[in-house]
């Protein structure tokens, strides 16, 4: 019996091609190891934004989780985050509900009781359904309509259907659609823009704000910066939406269809040359000229300064961070650092980076956080001088680490600058 974690070099991965990803890297073909990364997306109550926390992005909203007790257990962690106290309620299914769906008849009364219990009427009650209702085929739209009649407040469904994670519309896509579903048609304002994609705001120093303002935008909306329900409803006025996370594409499509708001997409990148190209294309598509040279120079200076101080160090990269592990690894290698190991799930879309990685660093090894063989990973080994990502820290607890998973989202040049500042701090 081989007691080693499965890994593959980027060269081999590239040679296999995106249509032939090895079975060991395909989640559906194996049991799933409970690694820190798996916990973060399998148990989203544990960290970051899962369906439960994301579903409460609408200001003044509360959530009724309709589920067996197990699905609400770790919600306690979310409830301990400031701003989430007193916003979760539970309608617990018993053993017979699981089979016959009797709990659904109780939902309208439960919503009414929750609304009556609260001192202040919620802006919306989000109903969070789980795997049981996925299998029962529950018509949540109908249940929510009945609950709305019973309670007198808007009620919307969000789907914590882990069973559909690899489906066409996985839970994190649908919850993004759900949180914008309350927006109604309004008169458009040519100087208002929405940023979609994240449940927390961009870093305050992100140049995208400056770029948009210089392009004449007066109002930049992000759902996480809406202080109240009224300002949330103001998102209906946007001239266009900027989608920063592909999981918000369905929401943007819905807003385009219902409210006539067009959208364009930008990607979070750490390669400064690619950031520049993306901004150039962005400026072209909205018909403005933009000057990003100052922002780019600052980011490249942060990289240069770090490299000058610490040399061409080796950096192991995980996936529990605000970056695509492969794009970030490619950026680091292009900046002159070594990336010996990457810990990440792989999708076909990652091949755009894997192809370049195979040219520049073919022997970089890729581990998947999902493989049962990761149980054998030797956490006492020192694979790198520095690790990036909370999961990478788990594999190398004695290494310097930058979790890079802050709530405020890095983007663009400010993301590069911020990352290298944190790396400098970690090695100080």
């Amino acid at each position: 019996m081989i007691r080693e974690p499965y890994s593959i070099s980027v060269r081999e991965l590239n040679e296999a091609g995106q249509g032939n990803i090895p079975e060991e890297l395909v989640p559906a073909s194996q049991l799933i190891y409970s690694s820190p990364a798996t916990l973060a997306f399998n148990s989203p109550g544990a960290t970051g934004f899962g369906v439960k926390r994301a579903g409460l992005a609408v200001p003044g909203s509360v959530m009724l989780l309709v589920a067996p007790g197990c699905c609400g257990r770790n919600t306690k962690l979310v409830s301990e985050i400031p701003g989430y106290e007193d916003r979760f309620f539970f309608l617990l299914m018993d053993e017979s509900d699981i089979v016959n769906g009797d709990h659904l008849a109780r939902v309208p009364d439960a919503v009414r009781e929750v609304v009556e219990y609260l001192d202040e009427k919620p802006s919306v009650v989000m109903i969070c359904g789980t795997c049981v209702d996925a299998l029962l085929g529950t018509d949540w739209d109908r249940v929510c309509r009945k609950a709305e009649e019973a309670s007198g407040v808007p009620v919307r469904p969000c789907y914590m259907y882990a069973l559909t994670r690899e489906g066409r519309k996985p839970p994190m896509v649908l919850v993004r659609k759900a949180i914008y579903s309350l927006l109604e048609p309004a008169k458009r304002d040519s100087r208002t823009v929405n940023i979609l994609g994240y449940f927390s705001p961009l870093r305050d120093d992100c140049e995208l704000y400056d770029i948009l303002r210089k392009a004449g935008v007066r109002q930049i909306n992000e759902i996480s910066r809406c202080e109240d329900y009224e300002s949330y409803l103001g998102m209906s006025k946007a001239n266009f939406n900027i989608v920063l996370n592909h999981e918000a594409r369905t929401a943007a499509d819905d807003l385009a269809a219902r409210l006539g708001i067009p959208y364009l997409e930008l990607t979070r990148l750490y390669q400064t040359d690619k950031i520049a190209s993306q901004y150039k294309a962005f400026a072209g598509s909205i018909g403005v000229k933009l000057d990003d040279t100052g922002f780019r120079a600052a980011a490249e200076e942060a990289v240069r300064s770090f490299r000058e101080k610490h040399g061409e160090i080796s950096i192991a990269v995980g996936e529990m961070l605000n970056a695509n592990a492969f794009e970030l690894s490619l950026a680091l290698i292009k900046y002159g650092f070594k990336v010996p190991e990457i810990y990440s799930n792989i999708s076909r879309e990652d091949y755009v980076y894997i192809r370049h990685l195979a040219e520049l660093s073919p022997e970089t090894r890729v581990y998947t956080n999902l493989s049962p063989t990761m149980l054998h990973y030797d956490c006492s080994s020192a694979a790198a001088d520095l690790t990036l990502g909370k999961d990478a820290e788990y594999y190398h607890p004695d290494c310097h680490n930058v979790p890079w998973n802050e709530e405020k989202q890095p983007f663009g040049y400010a993301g590069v600058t911020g990352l290298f500042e944190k790396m400098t701090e970690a090695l100080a």
Partner: protein
Amino acid sequence: MSVKGLHKIIYPFAPDQSGAASVLYELGGMIIICDAGGCAGNICGFDEPRWLQTKSAVFSAGLRDMDAILGRDDLMIEKIRKASDKIDAKFIAIIGTPVPATIATDYKALRRMAEKRIGLPVITVDSNGALWYDSGISKTYLECFRRFASEDAGGIIPGSAGVLGVTPLDSDSLTAGDKIREALSAEGMEKVICYGAGSTFEDFAAAGRMEKNIVVAASGLRAARYLKDRFGTPYECTDPLAGEVRSALPLRTEEIAGKNILIIHQQVRANALRDILRREAAGSGAEARITAATWFMMDDELSEEGDFRIREESDFFELVRNGSWDIIIADSSFRRAAGDLCGRYIDLPHFAVSGHFAGEESVRFYT
């Protein structure tokens, strides 16, 4: 009248699949949570405090909608077989969740198919996520002893005791097993096995060799009765740590006398604490009226008249509102729900309730 199942303040407790996994965590088997991912995530990320310290082969079956709808058990068994080629495992445990409960998975058939295909002993636990942790512990103990305990393991070991109901979930400390071993050793026991806390697969196989069993939580009671029937092992229900728990309560003896007190915990601990407080009150020449209540298993043999099984949050409100309690001793999670309806509230940690131990730092990777 509140809607059945509605919780407005009290968060759900550790579910039965977490209880099942807590018994098996250290036994060297492959533990397969028959779920889409969230249940395994909840176990390792929240309910299993040993996850951060000790590696264990706890895996999610990674079920997807079509696996469940089409009942593709063979696909799951093939995944288990492939993993078993790469992981040393003494046995396979398949633990149920709401997904197999909804599609009425035939666990017996699943076990037979898996044993045939994989060639390792397989146990299944029909947990469903709608019951609390104690149910999962109880079922898993029973399943383990049925499958693994052997008449051929040897004779009775003099001075030995098996302890049932001692996984981290039942308790207020990650080191409860060690403390129980110390306490029983101090009483003269030479060999103490805490099933689910520092025990091995071989300990379960040799369960029939124990001179007696000690049940420290009601979750261990069914297994104790089974072992008595099968091996003749006598058992007693007691909490060896009750004295230590009492000492930690900020409550002087003179504050107990004449008071109306409610203790909420798992039944054995609540009873043991009640006994101590009563003795203290009697020693000071006054009685204390003490009621034990629990959200979990309540065995008639261990109950006094007036003891209370709480099933709904509304039951809890009623119990607190109508009891005229001078003192409530319970996990801090209930403090807010108790509001100002009692004279004094004293924390009595219960990991399965709050997910926190007494005075110990966080046990989670993500906090």
